[in-house]
């Protein structure tokens, strides 16, 4: 009787244990990350032994199930796919970070460029003859600064002192300029720009621009005796004829005029008469003296 009771007690305990307990396997360093089991090892079919292959066939043909090895390989592939998606997600995140970084740098550069002088107000006196490149040094082996398109506007600054076939220029890039070196053979000069008389000083009917006045409309001082070119312009709305010391001089299409005058040691008097339709509108009489 006692034995029966003991046997039943043991049975009950076993039932309780079995009923109440949840499988709580122990943790191991060998476990796959984030799991409680060892990483699955997939033995590819071609590497399986004859016995393993026979086991596979029995499971497939007899029980219409996957063998243990086949299950492990299937799990391994699922794990690989999961890992790939995760890596891809990580790459997207990294790319986003790089783009953000570039944007930040770009903003910083933009800011620095906005602080730089604009080149849009400069007359670019040269052009590129062909497509070429702008370099940081007078050498084709140096860093490339920019591509130069054919006919791109260039501002010639100076020849290279060490490489006589190279010149330092500014390349017009929108409103900004890229400084750099370009081979001379690719530079050509634009046609000379006719400089019009500045509008703001056209208030005078006749103006002398070269040489400068020592006393306006009274005296010009030159460094030596000899011939000198006097340049000036007229207000063409009010003057259509210029007579210098009784000789008519040509007024150019841009309203400028020039003439050569001999300055003697004792000085020379110049009389400029400006007429409109034969009527005198302005007369300037001045002295040119030798310093």
């Amino acid at each position, binding site marked *: 009787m006692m034995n029966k009771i003991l046997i039943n007690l043991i049975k009950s305990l076993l039932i309780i244990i079995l009923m109440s307990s949840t499988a709580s396997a122990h943790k191991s360093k060998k476990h796959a990350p984030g799991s409680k089991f060892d990483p699955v090892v997939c033995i590819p079919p071609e590497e399986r032994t004859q016995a393993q292959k026979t086991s596979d066939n029995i499971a497939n043909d007899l029980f219409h199930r996957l063998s243990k090895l086949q299950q492990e390989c299937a799990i391994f592939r699922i794990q690989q796919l999961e890992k790939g998606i995760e890596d891809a997600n990580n790459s997207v995140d990294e790319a986003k970070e790089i783009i953000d970084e570039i944007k930040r740098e770009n903003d910083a550069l933009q800011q620095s460029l906005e602080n730089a002088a604009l080149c849009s107000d400069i*007359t670019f*006196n040269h*052009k590129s*003859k062909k497509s070429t490149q702008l370099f940081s040094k007078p050498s084709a082996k140096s860093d490339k600064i920019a591509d130069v398109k054919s006919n791109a506007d260039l501002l*010639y*600054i*100076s020849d290279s002192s060490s490489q*006589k*076939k190279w010149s330092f220029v500014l390349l017009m890039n929108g409103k900004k300029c890229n400084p750099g070196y370009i081979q*001379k*053979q690719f*530079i*050509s*000069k*634009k*046609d*000379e720009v006719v400089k019009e008389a500045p509008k703001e000083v056209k208030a005078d009917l006749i103006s002398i621009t*070269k040489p400068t006045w020592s006393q306006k409309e009274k005296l010009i001082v*030159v*460094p*030596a*005796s*000899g*011939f*000198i*070119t006097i*340049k000036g312009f007229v207000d063409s709305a009010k003057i259509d004829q210029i007579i210098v010391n009784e000789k008519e001089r*040509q007024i150019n299409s841009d309203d400028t005029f*020039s003439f*050569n005058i*001999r*300055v003697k040691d004792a000085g020379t008097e110049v009389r400029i008469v400006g007429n409109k339709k034969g009527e005198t509108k302005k007369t300037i009489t001045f002295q040119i003296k030798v310093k």
Partner: protein
Amino acid sequence: MKQTFIQIFIVLLTLSISNAYSAEKCEPDFELNKATLTQNNENSSSDKGEVFVFFDQSKTMQGFTIDQPGQENLYVNIVDDIQQISENIGSDIVYQNFGTDVNPMEDRDVSKVKTKKFYECSGSSVSCDNQSSKIQEIFKIAEDYPEATHIVVTHLSLQDRQLVGSESKQIRGPLTSLLKQGKSIGIIGIMNSFNGKIDNIPTKEGEYTEYLDAETRPFYILVIGNQDNINRIKDEIVENHFSSSKENFKYALITSNPILQNLNVNKLIEETNMPASLARADNFSFNYIEDYLPVYKFSGNKKTKLEFKVNTDQIEVPGSTGVSEFSISEKVWTTNKVKCKDIKNWNEAKFGEISAISRDDKELTLDLFKTKPLKKLFRGLRYFYKIDLYAEKPGKSSEREFSEWSVKSSEIEELKETNPVSFKTLNLEKFVSILNAVSGDTFKKTLIASFAVNFELTK
């Protein structure tokens, strides 16, 4: 009464002596078309005039001051020569520099012309790059001061725009005025070492480029003034630097009259101008009528060779354009009396064109009776054939002289691509041709020589 008769007799005797040649009627009556041109040396006044010297200060001239290894640099010495010659030929020397403008030079700057520093440009790169040399400004000054001698030292590379339209007029106008006043322009070209930048090279796209690899390049000295001074400067440069070889030297003289002299005025026509065989002809004589017209008198037949030759050196101003076209004015008179004492009248014959002119580099030949041969003339008559030889049109020899150193704007880019060691002058030939054209316009038909043949055509 007796005294009156004596006076009348003396007057008649004097008159008869002075007309002796016409009394015998050995020549027909004709009017001698005497030339006044003696030696073409213009207003060769011994007075020293003003000399204006202009140095081209454009940056490209710097290349002439820097030695190029292996090449002879004459620029520095010739600039020295010019300063010295100017002092010799002028009473007052005024120095200027020019480029886009003309500016007077201080004395201390004159010595710097031989140095690189003189050509350094202190302006902006835009104003210093591809500077123009406005040679037309010098012509304008020369027009205003025609009595002075103007000496210009320049590279003489001229853009197309300087040689057309209004800018060309600024050269042609003053030049016409100067030539009409008897002035001339000498162009002295010297091939010199060069170590610098040749800029202002036009491209086909209408832009400008430059060339840095030239080792030689010509520079030029233009002299505007009297031929005497021009020749003096030229001779001095030749003597100092080109006495052994003129390979690197060229010279042209642009003048309204490339005729050196009239051969009659200085009695330069001689027996030897005709073939030597003529002097052995029967009754040959050679005499001047009125100390002006040479007459070859002889008895000839249809085979008599009558070629009148004259050296072009005696006719054309050395270095000038020369003469490209000559013409003759010819007249023939005949008489049936072969002996002078029997001749009463000469009859002017209407033969039309009688002789032909030909020339080579050295000689001008008048082939007498080539078009109307002697064999077609009546024999047994005496003929008096008078010829006036004229220069009709000036030549183009100076263009040919400089063509070797000249390059057209349409060809200069290709020239640059060939990386030439010796670079040529842009539009030089065109510039010289403009000067020649102006001298052609001011040229007047000029009598060079007159002579006659007086012969009996024997059977």
